[in-house]
């Protein structure tokens, strides 16, 4: 392999590694075009900073590139914007080779560092506003947590207007031409990366964009895929648009969405669902709707869940469990923010009836608010039981509209 490096600006070079063969990333992502682990060297009059490393298996390429541009003794700082192993894989070795270098990580990364490097190493932490100097070059740090781990941060090189954004604005897209104006069409990979990695953290994306907006950005240097230098604002605008677009109905009609998802074999859970929906829909400000899980695609599930302020799930108990589509629905929460959503569960059963309780429990782990106990009904609901279902719908809807819950425990 040639020790290929690439210049972003007079004092910044790419020294990352290419992984053309990878086809699945982090278990959850398909990577048809492979990927890259981007790392950069910044040169100042007093010495250099290394911005992130690469996945361990690719250390050799990384060190070759690094050595073609600087000596280990020149390294003043090693900055890790994110400790995930795809970027911290060569850290331990780099610190051995450059023992004088100061490691810089975010405050939230401190406890993680111990889990990544098993030996004790010296480090400094950075929060928004911290500045390091390389002589004639100045790097300012920005705290941008949860994008997509608690520890993530970004930094900005003032003199050359480069934003080191971490995984933000990344794409799994291998192309050695490297710059957005020279590589192939990576737009699908840019969106796919956002959808799978950033979408659960929309509020944090918006916070980060707000911090970025303080700076004049000429080049965005992310940790994966093409370096964005043609029109960085285009990519920033995309992130802004995608992070703001949920809750269309809430913003347009001022209503809150309550969705009842159910599955039913002999119509009992379905009958309950109808009554719960009726009850919920009777509350001013709520639009309640019902969806049969038997025929919802995953992408529809994700969109519906995202739009819903309250999610009520109904499943019969089958062989001591809730039905698979109900679990599939909840598995979609991996792509979404759940904080702040109201949840509730119900279902008809024959003799054990654990499904509603199990769904309720799972929703608790997913950080739903669960102010109402699950409701289960033995086989065919009676008229009185259907009134309970109506009241259940009313209660969940009222709480969704802001009714305070008071209790004693």
């Amino acid at each position: 392999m040639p020790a290929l490096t690439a210049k972003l600006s007079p004092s910044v070079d790419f020294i990352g590694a290419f992984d053309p063969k990878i086809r699945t990333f982090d278990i959850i992502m398909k990577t048809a075009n492979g990927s890259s682990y981007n790392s950069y060297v910044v040169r100042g009059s007093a010495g250099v900073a290394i911005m992130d490393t690469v996945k361990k298996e690719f250390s050799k390429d990384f060190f070759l590139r690094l050595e073609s541009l600087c000596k280990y003794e020149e390294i003043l700082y090693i900055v890790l914007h994110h400790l995930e192993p795809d970027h911290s894989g060569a850290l331990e070795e780099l610190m051995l080779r450059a023992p004088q270098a100061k490691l810089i990580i975010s405050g939230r990364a401190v406890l993680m560092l111990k889990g990544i490097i098993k030996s004790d190493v010296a480090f400094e932490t950075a929060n928004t506003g911290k500045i390091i100097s390389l002589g004639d070059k100045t790097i300012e740090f920005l705290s941008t947590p949860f994008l997509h781990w608690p520890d993530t941060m970004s930094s900005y090189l003032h003199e050359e207007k480069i934003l080191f954004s971490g995984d933000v604005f990344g794409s799994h897209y291998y192309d050695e031409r490297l710059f957005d104006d020279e590589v192939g069409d990576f737009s699908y990979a840019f969106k796919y990366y956002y959808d799978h990695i950033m979408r659960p953290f929309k509020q944090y994306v918006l916070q980060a964009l707000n911090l970025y907006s303080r700076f004049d950005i000429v080049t965005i240097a992310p940790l994966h895929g093409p370096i964005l230098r043609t029109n960085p604002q285009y990519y920033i605008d995309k992130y802004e648009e995608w992070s703001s677009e949920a809750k269309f109905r809430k913003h347009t009609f001022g209503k809150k969405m309550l969705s009842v998802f159910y599955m039913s074999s002999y119509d009992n859970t379905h009958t309950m669902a109808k009554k719960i929906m009726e009850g919920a829909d009777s509350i001013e400000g709520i639009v309640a709707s019902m969806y049969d899980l038997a025929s919802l695609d995953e992408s529809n599930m994700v969109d519906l869940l995202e739009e819903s302020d309250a999610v009520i799930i109904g499943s019969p108990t089958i062989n001591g469990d809730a039905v698979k589509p109900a679990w599939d629905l909840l598995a979609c929460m991996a792509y979404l923010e759940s904080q702040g959503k109201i949840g509730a569960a119900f279902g008809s059963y024959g003799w054990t009836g654990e499904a509603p309780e199990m769904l309720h429990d799972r929703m608790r782990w997913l950080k739903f608010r669960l102010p109402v106990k699950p409701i289960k009904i033995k086989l065919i609901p009676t008229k009185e039981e259907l009134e309970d279902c109506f009241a259940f719908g009313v209660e969940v809807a009222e709480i969704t509209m802001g009714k305070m819950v008071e209790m004693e425990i």
Partner: protein
Amino acid sequence: MVSVYLKNDNIKVNVKTGKSMREIARKSGASMEFGCRVGDCSTCIAKIVHGADLLNPINDKELLAIKAIGSKEENLRLMCQCIVEADEGEIEISYFF
């Protein structure tokens, strides 16, 4: 009874002295988030809007976690380390701020 108001969830829970915030969160259905439950991960960090003195005193793990996060907010606590110690009064808690 101490009244614990969980602001983000709009839930008011009346509890006797000795109740842990973990139990209060779980039993009330609040969406307060916990991770390790032993004070290591900072997931459960929250702000005591008022009534901080009605809880047990802050411990070393919490001080360390708050320092690491570098926030200038006052009265931050790790919810997994908090217990209601008073008999009377009102506490208000706000999480994910």
